């Protein structure tokens, strides 16, 4: 204690020692073994389960999955069975949403349209994420010229707007292979979107990998004798997945919208395939003329709700996985 300071005890500063009974000592570094062991994913899952955003979006997506797998459960009408005599007629028993211009059942087309839209969205996300993850992880982990090269390639693809590029690519494909089946058409859109959608994921993955590889546990593994490849696959990539998963969930919605936009422009799925984008496209004349707005409203509403649930899911997953929110 420095000299010259008053050392007499003043009121409120008398020596005080708490009774041991009131302030029991705990073992230094005792282990709490009451709770079951939990990995990070388990903990995230526990947090997700409590999040109402997640519950709502998961319920919607589950419902959507049932619709796609068993459309027959919801309607017995054939969406491609159209009678011109019923063109633009209002709802009637068995046809709760009425008929479109061709006289097809709006309700059953809405149900069957889900399949094409969601398939395109899922496949595109899968391919774009896989591609982006590989490129981003390799670029971020190995650095130097590999990073420069891959990052510039990603930048080039990133600089081209997703829709514009897909429009050009698909119109070329359409003129070369005018008649395609369901899967060929779906695949064409998926490839076009994935080809220009991966740089987004690659950027996120690269950033996450660079952050992870500087962590001490990566050095520790190196010092244990782990090869760079093992380090990348076993330590760095698993720890960089969280932001990639979040990006993937959100972009799923974006890809579904992109498919609808392409179909709306007549470049996506051929009109013979039932899809929300095609129906919205077909309905635009009615909207302009102010007839039967339902023909536009129902497929568009279904599309909006689907995209909404995926974006909601992405938000909920971000809340659970965001490392910043987890730091205590």
């Amino acid at each position, binding site marked *: *204690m420095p000299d010259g300071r008053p050392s007499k005890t*003043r009121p409120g500063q008398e020596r*005080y020692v708490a009774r041991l009974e009131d302030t029991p*000592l705990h073992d230094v*570094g005792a282990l709490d073994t009451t709770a079951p062991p939990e*990995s990070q994913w388990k903990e995230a899952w526990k947090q997700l389960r409590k999040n109402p955003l997640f519950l709502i979006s998961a319920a919607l997506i589950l419902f959507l999955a049932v619709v796609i797998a068993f459309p027959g459960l919801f309607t017995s009408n054939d969406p491609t069975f159209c009678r011109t005599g019923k063109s633009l007629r209002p709802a009637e028993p068995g046809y709760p949403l009425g008929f479109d211009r061709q006289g097809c059942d709006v309700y059953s087309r809405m149900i069957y349209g889900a399949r094409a839209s969601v398939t395109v969205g899922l496949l595109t996300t899968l391919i774009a994420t896989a591609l982006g993850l590989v490129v981003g992880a390799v670029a971020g982990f190995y650095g130097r010229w590999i990073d420069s090269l891959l990052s510039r390639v990603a930048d080039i693809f990133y600089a081209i707007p997703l829709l514009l590029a897909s429009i050009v690519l698909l119109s070329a494909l359409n003129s070369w292979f005018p008649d395609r089946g369901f899967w060929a058409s779906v695949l064409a859109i998926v490839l076009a979107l994935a080809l220009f959608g991966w740089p987004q994921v690659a950027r996120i993955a690269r950033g996450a990998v660079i952050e992870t590889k500087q962590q001490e546990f990566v050095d*520790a593994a190196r010092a244990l004798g782990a090869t760079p490849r093992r380090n990348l696959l076993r330590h760095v990539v698993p720890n960089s997945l969280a932001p990639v998963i979040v990006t993937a969930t959100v972009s799923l919605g974006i890809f579904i919208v992109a498919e609808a936009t392409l179909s709306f422009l007549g470049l996506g799925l051929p009109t013979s395939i039932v899809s929300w984008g095609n129906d919205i496209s077909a309905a635009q004349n009615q909207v302009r003329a102010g007839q039967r707005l339902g023909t536009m409203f129902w497929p568009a509403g279904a599309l909006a709700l689907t995209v909404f649930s995926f974006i909601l899911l992405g938000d909920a997953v971000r809340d659970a996985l965001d490392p910043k929110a987890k730091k205590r």
Partner: protein
Amino acid sequence: MSRDLNPDQPLLEVKDLHVGFAADKKTVVPAVIGANLTVYPGQTVAIVGESGSGKSTTAHAIIDLLPGTGRITGGQILFEGQDIAHAKKSDIVALRGSSIGLVPQDPMSNLNPLWRVGTQIKESLEANGVAKGKAADARVVELLEEAGLPDAARRAQQYPHEFSGGMRQRALIAMGLAARPKLLIADEPTSALDVTVQKQILDHLDRLTDELGFAVLLITHDLGLAAERADHLVVMYRGQVVESGPALEILQDPQHPYSKRLVSSAPSLASQRLSSVQARAEVREQAVQTAAEIAAEVATHDDELGEGRGTIIEAKDLTKVFKIRGSRPGQSTDFTAVDQVSFQLERGTTTAIVGESGSGKSTVARMVLGLLDATSGSVEFDGVDITTLRKKEQQLALRRQMQPVFQNPYASLDPMYSIYRSIEEPLRLHGVGTAKERETKIRDLLDKVSLPASVMTRYPNELSGGQRQRVAIARALALDPEVVICDEAVSALDVLVQAQILTLLNELQSELGLSYLFITHDLAVVRQIADHVLVMQNGKVVEQSTVSEVFENPREDYTRMLLDAIPGGSIPLGVVEAGDDV
């Protein structure tokens, strides 16, 4: 400064304060339970405690800056006789800055990087209505000068990134004192700084307290520092005040078992010195003996690297030059991080490398580990130059015999790996044993580091810092290495945990005949673990000798400065011996 303060009238009284954090709508987790403390004008009072003791929460409750869901759930906070715990928000805002100033913990993140330092101080002057415009600008320069910044007028025009950590903390002190508060709350004001800078800043703060007559509430985890700087001490543990009273009295005659533990564990305190020197000598004797047996065995084995020499690591003229990118592409300047460092590590002993941030000590460790290539010089492991090892088997053999323990127990374990997998990884990598044998080995290792086997199924995020460091040590020992390199292995831990880990390292050394290279910024812990010490500054070794020689008879000014800067080093202590009632 003329102040109409009655020195016998408490400036701040905290009475039976309860603070809780709402975990969800129903449960409130208590963080502070019935805390009492009193601060008189012009006095320095310190709250001491480990992380999670509620010391910072108490301080934040006083200025109503509780984070997140924190609420005052009971008790009173009287500032000059007025209850501010239940005052209106606007009254407290008026109080902040003008009557109660705050110097925050982390000087790196508490200045806005987009604003000039001067502008930020001016803001606090204007917000408290002290000065405006030109007058404020002039006052800013005065304040910075007062806080001990040379060339204050120019410095005020600079941005935070142009300041070092110590300079930023001075700027924050200037800001905290801008409106001449009657009470300054300093929340771990120097824990992020090097010891010599810490001493300068605290000395300066002491001078200012005397000149300006404000009171200081110092929050710190370091008992030695608290006792050196404060008149009155408040020891907190798990949200409760366990002991309070005159600083010197508590230090010399702690009553509560927790305070006793703290006094006996604080590495900076003198009580440890003699007993730790003796204990260390015993450890070394045992370890050297065991190590010699191991050396004899190594010498006869072909599959192990090395010749079984007494000197297990010898670094010769180790130099590392980093190229720093220049302003134009292709242009670069050289930065010599490590300059001609030579040292030897004898089997069964510990060599400590001590230095402040930027001294190059960690770079040396990384070069010895082979994680970084040296620009020139060599590292010999048991007579084998490790830079010449090209064959994969040889490199793996080196990895088996030399293992690191890193600083940050929160970052050195893969969060996705269970403890079992973490410790098993080295065994797998080197193809040791069958799954069954590996499990036996892991159980044995956990037992060695005093962790229950039930910890195997857990994940790092469920363990405390000390437990994680134990796991990291278990992993390092999995391959039965001869050398363990501890890079700031205890720096991030609370004092009690730190003491435990040091004891563990000592026990393991005598039991297994390990040799340690111990990198640390804290000269105080060196006595408890090391036999030889290298003092580094700016990449060079300034002094190199046995530990007792360096402590008792330092030859270099820099070493003396480091020793002087150990907080509480000069406080006379009572007869509390380590292990007493702990």
